[in-house]
Every structure is written in structure tokens, then in C-alpha cells.
């Protein structure tokens, strides 16, 4: 991938431009522009933080399931085994895996959200 500019820098440049023109917009469009700027920020965070978050999710899910695989394969199997009741809150490693995955995803999607407890 080329680095001049990196993709997250492109996203960041669009976000900054949206913020610049926001004050000139009517209230409805100013609101939507803020949402759009947030979307660009999410894209930039996903590009920066996503690879490590995915790798960690794959590692944690592999631990719980006892074998490797792609993110999608492991996620599908994890969902199925939770749905069948085979995996529960008592299953070794499951809650830790889900905590790490939730924390990493929140850091990409909504870093300012303050969740329950001390996650």
C-alpha cells in the first residue's frame, strides 16, 4: 500500500474539510455533516486499529474454540456454539475473549462512550 498519503490520512483530510464547512450549513445539514465527519473518523480508526483488533479477535476465538481459522469462520462457529448452549458465561476463556473483542471494537466505533462497569 502506498504511504504518500496513507488511506487514513485521506479520510482525515475529508473529516477536517467537513468540519470546516459545517458552520455554513443549515441545521439539518450541519447535523448530518457532523455525522459524516464522525464516519470519516471511524474509517480512519478502523484503518489504524482494525488489523491488530482483528488479529487479537482471531487469537482469542481460536483459544476458546480450540482451533484456528479466519475471522469469519471463527466468528460464525462461536455464534453457533453460543446459540446451541454449548458455550456459556461459565466456559473457560469465553468472557475474557468477548471482553477484549468488545473493548477493541468500541475503541474503533465509539471511543468516547463510557460503558458499564470498568471495562
Amino acid at each position, binding site marked *: 500500500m502506498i504511504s504518500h498519503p496513507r488511506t487514513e490520512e485521506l479520510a482525515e483530510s475529508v473529516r477536517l474539510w467537513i468540519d470546516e464547512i459545517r458552520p455554513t450549513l443549515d441545521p439539518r445539514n450541519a447535523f448530518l455533516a457532523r*455525522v459524516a465527519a464522525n464516519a470519516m473518523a*471511524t474509517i480512519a480508526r478502523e484503518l489504524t486499529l482494525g488489523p491488530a483488533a482483528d488479529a487479537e479477535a482471531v487469537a482469542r476465538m481460536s483459544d476458546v474454540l480450540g482451533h484456528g481459522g479466519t475471522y469469519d469462520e471463527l466468528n460464525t462457529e462461536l455464534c453457533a456454539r*453460543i446459540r446451541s448452549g454449548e458455550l456459556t458465561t461459565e466456559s473457560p476463556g469465553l468472557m475474557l475473549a468477548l471482553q477484549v473483542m468488545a473493548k477493541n471494537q*468500541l475503541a474503533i466505533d*465509539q471511543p468516547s462512550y463510557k460503558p458499564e*462497569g470498568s471495562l
Partner: protein
Amino acid sequence: MEVDVRAGLQKLAARLGGEGATLTEAQRLSGGASMETWAFGFEGRDGPERLILRRRATAFDEETARSVSLATEAALIRATGANGARVPTVRHLCDAEDGLGEAYVMVRVDGETLGRKITSDARFDGVRPALARQCGESLVAIHKTTPPPGLKLKAVNGSEELDRYEEVYRATGAQRPILELAFQYLRRHVPDPVEPVLLHGDFRNGNIMFDPEKGVAAILDWELAHLGDPAEDMGWICTNSWRFGRPDRPVGGFGEYADLLAGYASAGGLDIDLPRVRFWQMLGSLRWGVMCLTMYLSWRDGVTKSVERPMIGRRVSETEADLVVLLEEGL
């Protein structure tokens, strides 16, 4: 058909305030695409009046909708108000003569509804410690109201609510392990059914008008009223999605569980234990997560094209972060 609301309000002023009453203000406040709120006022026969018009701007089918009609809303506000609940006074239920479609008029109540102001603004520092208890007391007057006869109110219990939201979740095709685990966990912890009571159905910080001196001023937004477990209303106001940055204060971001429960008991409500409230709180996080998924889908499927919708889909992770902690802690 486009309705000229301003013209309608002028007619209403004459109808409510007497011949010659003239509109002194008319301002659209907010609301989504389907519901409009207007603040208006007039100088009438008996002096000035400051009112709120709530009207539906799109077609509505009470049989299939999750929400109730505005006529039902008005009837419930009147009935709960007569039973001592802190609600606005319904001034007028609109009919064909008004030309405003489905709508009703309330007397305006002063106060604050923005959740973050209630949890964090210094103006509420004095009254804030009293609010959770007041919310508990306020719910009793609602829950003890016998709904007026003839209203179409749906009844739901915990396991039916889980069925409904799991069906919606499955239909989205999303695969989210934390939501899966929450469905499984909650199914194993459904509380014993209780005699269904009248519920507000959307009792949370943001739908309650608070006064900085007196606390709860009026309970608003009745469109999701239904019959069910009283702990449902108590759990929803404890759901972290509505604590506005104060997860350390479980009730609405402003108060403690013990005060909510004590207020409820002291006003003569049923004895409700904390795990029952936490069941509904957790189901509240799950329900909000599933709703965020469906809002993304409404964009993907072309129902609405606003950028808002896919971004709401990225709020599912908020509910997952909450759910994983609740699953770890237990009810």
C-alpha cells in the same frame, strides 16, 4: 397531503381561546420524520395560553404498529394524571374540524429534557440526588392506573420480548457473539411472570421533563405504552445507553438503584427486587443493540438514505461493551 400546520394552529387558537384569539407564537420544536412537536401560544378570552401540539405527520396503522395512536396516548396521559402521575395536562384532542390529522394539544410544562444536562449540568446538582427516588414514586402512579376501557394496548412479558427481538436479530443476518450470549443468558434468567400493569414503555432519561428545583415535572413520550412487568419501566431507565456519560450512576446517569426501588416501595408499589430490574436493564441494552442493527439495515435496504443510519449501526458496539460487563457480573 401536505398540511399547513401554522394555519391549523391559528384555527385552533380561535377554537380554544374564543373568537378573536390570535396566535402569538408557533414554532416547530423537533421530532423525527413521523412525529412533529410544535410550541404555540395565543392571547385568548381567559388570558394567554402556552401550549404544545403533538401531531403525526405520516400514516399510522394501530393494528401493526409497535406504538399506540395519539388518541390512545392522550387518553393514557389523562388517566395517569387523574391517578396522580406527573404528566402534562391534555388541553384538547384534535378532530376532523381542526384539519391537523392525528394530533393533540398539551399545556406547556417548563423544564429540561436533555439527558446530558440532567446528569452533568450544575443547575441540577441540588436536586439530582432526589431524582431516582422521585422516578420510583412516579412509576407507581402510572403502574396503578387502570387503562381506560377500549384502548388497544399490547401485553408483553420477558420471554415474549426475547422471542420478538431474537426474531428481528436473526432476520438481520448479523453474527455478533455477545448478542448471542445475551439472548441465551436472559432466556435462562427470565423472572417469574407477574400480573401485567400499565407501563409507560419508554421511561428513560430524555423522556422526562425535570425542573432544577422540584425534580420530575412531567413524564413525556407515551407512544410505546403497553402492558407488562413493572420492572420493565425500572430497568429501561437503568440501561447504560441512557446514562449520558455517567455509568457510575445506574439510574439514568443521575441516581442509585436503592433509591429507585425505595421510592417505588414507599409510594405503594409492588415489592420488586434488583435482579428483576437488572434483567430488564440487560434486555434493554440487548434491545437497543438490535434496534441499532435494524437502523443500519434500513439504509442498506434503501428504505432511508441518511448517513445517520449506517453510523447508528456502529453503536451496536456500545451495547456489546455494556452487555459483556453485565454478563460477567450477573443479574
